[in-house]
């Protein structure tokens, strides 16, 4: 399965915008653990996933060419 990854803020410093090709990931829970294993810095951070611009609130299946956004909280003012 091909996924497009876009990330923001600090997360974009270690996860660049990219296409990934993964075979054994079929849902967002698995994607989270894939991302946290591939990018260990992510595991200790607060972030929210969105698929095709919709924020994920519970495990959801993925399909080819889904667009994954990884968003951290900002507090500056």
């Amino acid at each position, binding site marked *: 399965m091909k996924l497009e990854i876009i990330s923001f803020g600090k997360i974009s410093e270690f996860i660049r915008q990219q296409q990934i090709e993964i075979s054994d990931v079929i849902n967002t829970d698995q994607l989270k*653990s894939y991302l946290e294993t591939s990018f260990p810095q992510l595991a200790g951070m607060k972030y929210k996933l969105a698929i095709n611009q919709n924020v994920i609130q519970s495990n959801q299946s993925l399909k080819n060419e889904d667009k994954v956004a990884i968003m951290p909280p900002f507090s*500056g*003012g």
Partner: protein
Amino acid sequence: MDNERYSRQLILKGFGVEAQNKLINSRILVIGAGGLGCPILQYLVTAGIGTIGIVDDDTISLSNLHRQILYATNDIDQPKVKVAAKRLRLMNPETHIVEHELRLDKSNIFNTIESYDIIVDGTDNFDSRYMINDVCAILQKPLIFAAVAGFEGQLAIFNVKNEQGIATNYRDLFPISPLPGEVSNCAENGVLGVLPGIIGSMAAAETIKLVTGIGQPLISKMLHYNLLNQATYTLNISPGNDYFLPESKADFLLSNEEQLCPKTPVFEEIDLATMQLLQEEASALVIDVREKHEFPLLNKEIFLQVPMSEFNTFVQNNIAAESIVLLCQHGIRSVAAAELLQEKYGHTKKIYSLKGGISKWRNHFLTKQNE
């Protein structure tokens, strides 16, 4: 109303006197008179909002001036609220400016917020942001959220029902606040002055749209803006179910103590020897929060496996054990899990995280496997 002052927006197609009257009859509270607050205040005041409250307890410093454009060099050391109010009254004497020279806390936030129609959050720290979010959610008060980090900004509108009748709040995105130091702010990270200028102006635009009913305000949407490539990305927010929000003012005043104070973790990071001691003497429950595919596999009779991805669901059940040790590969996710348990149990249970995780004490865990 001075028609000439507002003539250029009065002649706008789809705006006119009706929209202008809505602005004049509205009461807006802007929290934080800093990088975001300055442009927000300027554009709301010049647009002709009837009443604007300003909340801030800070004074002006030299390093503020590159982005806090209401202030001049000879204002240094003066209270922001006073200087901003004076300047804004000159800009538009028709707007009633209310000065709230204070830092919002549990004791004053309800009184300060209650009489306003819309709250605009331009603060610079998570403690304030979560407190403002929770109180606005309890009061179902529309909240314009604006924040910046590095070269990027975020903008959203909460507590306003969308076409489906659903409203969201900040905790639907980020259920619990990052710990102090986990996410850096402008003071530590730096910010280009124009960025809060852009995001603040956009926040003022969203406020005007919400008041007048024009366009499509960012209701339950989070707009991301990147100054470096002028890219925007908008996410649709749906309600989450994995957070605690007080239901009423009374609930908030009772339950929110921990959250409003700077967080001191009540869980403890421990080494292997301490973990073994806890297992033997305190019959501690040891939870492995790694995902199911991660190696080495541990003995499931000794280590309860609850992957991080299922942890929020797991936390909803009650745990009988008095002592709980969390572990993962490197001791990072186990800290996040400890925070979640701390949110639920506070000081009523002893919560530990194995520092360094399985990889640090690999020999021990590999031997355990062979037993």
